[in-house]
C-alpha cells in the first residue's frame, strides 16, 4: 500500500464501531478500494460504543464517523450547549432499522415480556430508547439489563436475561447459537426508523467541502453495491465480523441499507429522548429546528 502513499493522497480520519454490521458500507468501501481510487487515505478509529466514539469526535479526533443516531443527537446537543468547536453534521444515512429484540422461546407474545429481564447494549443507545418507549407505550413492567454488547448472547445463553435488544449481528448470533427467537424487529417497533448515520465535522465541512462530497459519494456507492451485490457484500461482512454466512444471512434480513436520512424518525427519537431524560439541553419546542439544522444532505 506504500504505492498509494503519495503526497497527493488526502488523509481523513473516520470513526466506526467494532464489529457492527450496520456499518457494512464503510467496510465495503475499504475492501473495494473506493477511498484510494478517490485519492483518499483513511485512518480508521474503532470504538466499542457510540457514546465513546462521540466523545472522541467532539474532542476533535475524527473528521467523519459512522455512529448511531441517538449518540449523534446527544453529541450535537452537548456541543451546541457549550462552546465545543467540533460539531457533528449528518451528511447521509447509513442504515434504517436493524435492531432486533430476541427472546427465549418461552416468550411468544408482547404480554409475555411482563416481569422479564431484557438486556440492552447500554443507556442512551438506540435500542435502549426503542425498548424504553415500547415499554411505556404498552404499559409493561420490564427490567432493563444494560451490558456490554458482546456479553448479551452469553447472558442470554446462561439464562440470566430472558432476551435482549441489540444491533446486528449480535441478535443473529444468539439466534443461531442459543436458539433465540425474534420477538420484535425495529420494523415492528418503529417502521423505517433512522439507525446509523454518517456524520462529518463542521470543521472539515468548512475547510474542505470537496472531500465531504467525495466521502458521501463513496458511501452512497458502497451502499448501492451492498444492495445490488448482496452476495459479495455478505462475504465482506463475514470477513470483518468473523461470522458464518448463515448468521449473516439472518442479520441481513433485519437491516435496510439506505443512504436517505429519515428525518421524521430523527425528530421522533429526539422527542422520546427528551421525554426519557437522556437529552436535557433541548426542549420539545426546539426539536424541529434542531434536527433540520443537524441534517445536511447537500453533499454528494
Amino acid at each position, binding site marked *: 500500500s506504500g504505492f498509494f502513499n503519495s503526497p497527493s493522497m488526502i488523509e481523513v480520519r473516520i470513526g466506526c464501531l467494532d464489529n457492527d454490521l450496520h456499518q457494512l458500507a464503510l467496510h465495503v468501501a475499504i475492501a473495494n478500494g473506493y477511498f484510494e481510487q478517490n485519492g483518499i487515505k483513511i485512518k480508521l478509529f474503532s470504538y466499542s460504543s457510540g457514546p465513546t466514539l462521540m466523545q472522541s469526535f467532539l474532542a476533535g479526533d475524527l473528521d467523519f464517523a459512522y455512529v448511531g443516531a441517538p449518540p449523534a443527537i*446527544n453529541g450535537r446537543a452537548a456541543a451546541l*450547549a*457549550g462552546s465545543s468547536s467540533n460539531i457533528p453534521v449528518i451528511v447521509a444515512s447509513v442504515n434504517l432499522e436493524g435492531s432486533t429484540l430476541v427472546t427465549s422461546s418461552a416468550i411468544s407474545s408482547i404480554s409475555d415480556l411482563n416481569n422479564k429481564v431484557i438486556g440492552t447494549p*447500554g443507556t*442512551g*443507545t438506540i435500542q435502549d430508547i426503542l425498548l424504553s418507549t415500547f415499554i411505556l407505550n404498552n404499559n409493561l413492567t420490564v427490567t432493563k*439489563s444494560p451490558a*456490554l454488547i458482546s*456479553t448479551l448472547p452469553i447472558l442470554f445463553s446462561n439464562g440470566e436475561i430472558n432476551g435482549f435488544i441489540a444491533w446486528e449481528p449480535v441478535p443473529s448470533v444468539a439466534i443461531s447459537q442459543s436458539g433465540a427467537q425474534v420477538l420484535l424487529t425495529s420494523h415492528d417497533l418503529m417502521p423505517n426508523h433512522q439507525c446509523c448515520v454518517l456524520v462529518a465535522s463542521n470543521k472539515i465541512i468548512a475547510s474542505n467541502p470537496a472531500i465531504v462530497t467525495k466521502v458521501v459519494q463513496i458511501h452512497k456507492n458502497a451502499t448501492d453495491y451492498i444492495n445490488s451485490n448482496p452476495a459479495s457484500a455478505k462475504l465482506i461482512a463475514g470477513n470483518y465480523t468473523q461470522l458464518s454466512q448463515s448468521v449473516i444471512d439472518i442479520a441481513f434480513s433485519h437491516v435496510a441499507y439506505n443512504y436517505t436520512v429519515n428525518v421524521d424518525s430523527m425528530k421522533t427519537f429526539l422527542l422520546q429522548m427528551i421525554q426519557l431524560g437522556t437529552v436535557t439541553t433541548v426542549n420539545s419546542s426546539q426539536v424541529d429546528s434542531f434536527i433540520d439544522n443537524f441534517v445536511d444532505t447537500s453533499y454528494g
Partner: protein
Amino acid sequence: MLDLDVTIMPKMDRFRSVLIGVASLAVFVVAWQAITMATNSPFLPTPVQVFQAFLKISTIGDIDGYTLWWHIGVSLYRVLLGFAVAVITAVPLGLLMGVKPLVKNVASPITEIIRFIPPIAWIPLSIILLSGINRYIFLLWIGIFFPILLDTIAGVKRTSETQVNMAKSFGADNTAIIKKIIFPSALPEIMNGLRVGLGVGWMCIVAAEMMGGEPVGLGRLILKYANLLQIDVVVLGMVVIGLIGLAMNYLLLSGERRLFKWRVEIKA
C-alpha cells in the same frame, strides 16, 4: 517523622496542617470552578454543576430512578462480599505458602501469572463462567486476592527466627507456632494487605459493574451518564468513589494504629 526544618510546635502543627489541607482543597475547587467556567465546555462540569448533580441524584435519583445512596449501597455490598471471599482465601493460602515451601512452589507459578492479568480482562470469562452476584464477587476477588496474599507471605517471611526458636524451645508444635507466633507477627502486614486490597477492590468496582447486568452500582452510574454525555454525573461518581475509598482507607488505618500500638514503627 523526618523533617528537615522543624520550626513549629507539635500542637500548633497539627491544627495548622488541617487548616492548610482545607485551604488547599478550597483553592483546588475554586481553581476548578474558574477553569471550567472559562472553558465553558459541556464536558467539563463546574463544581457547582457537580453539586447540583449530587442534589438531583441523591434525592430524585438517576435516569432509571435509583438514588445515589442506592448505588453506593449496592457497590459497597458487592465490594465487601468480594473482600470477604478474598480474605478467607488469601490469608490461609498466604500463611501456608509462607510456611511450607512445597505449597509455595506448587502455587506460585500459577499465582504469579494470574496476578498480572487485570480484572477487566476477566470480564468475558467471568460472564461465561459465573452468574449474578458471583460474577461481581469473582471480579472483585481477582483484584483483592493478590495484595492480601503477597502481604501475608511477606508477613510470614518477616517472622523473627528467634521468636520461632523460643516457641520451639518450649516444645511448641507447628500449629502452636503458627497460632502463637507467625500469625500475630504477620498480622500487621496482613492488615496492610487488607487495607490495600480493599482499596484495590473499591477501584475494581467500576470495571466489575461495567460488564453489566444490573442497572445499579456506582460504576454503572458513571457509565450510564458517560453514555449520555452528561459529564457532571460522571464526575460526581468519580468524587464519590474517591471519597468513599479515602474513608475506608482511613478507617482501616486508624484501626491498625489502635491494634498495633506495640509496633513502634507504625508511627513513622
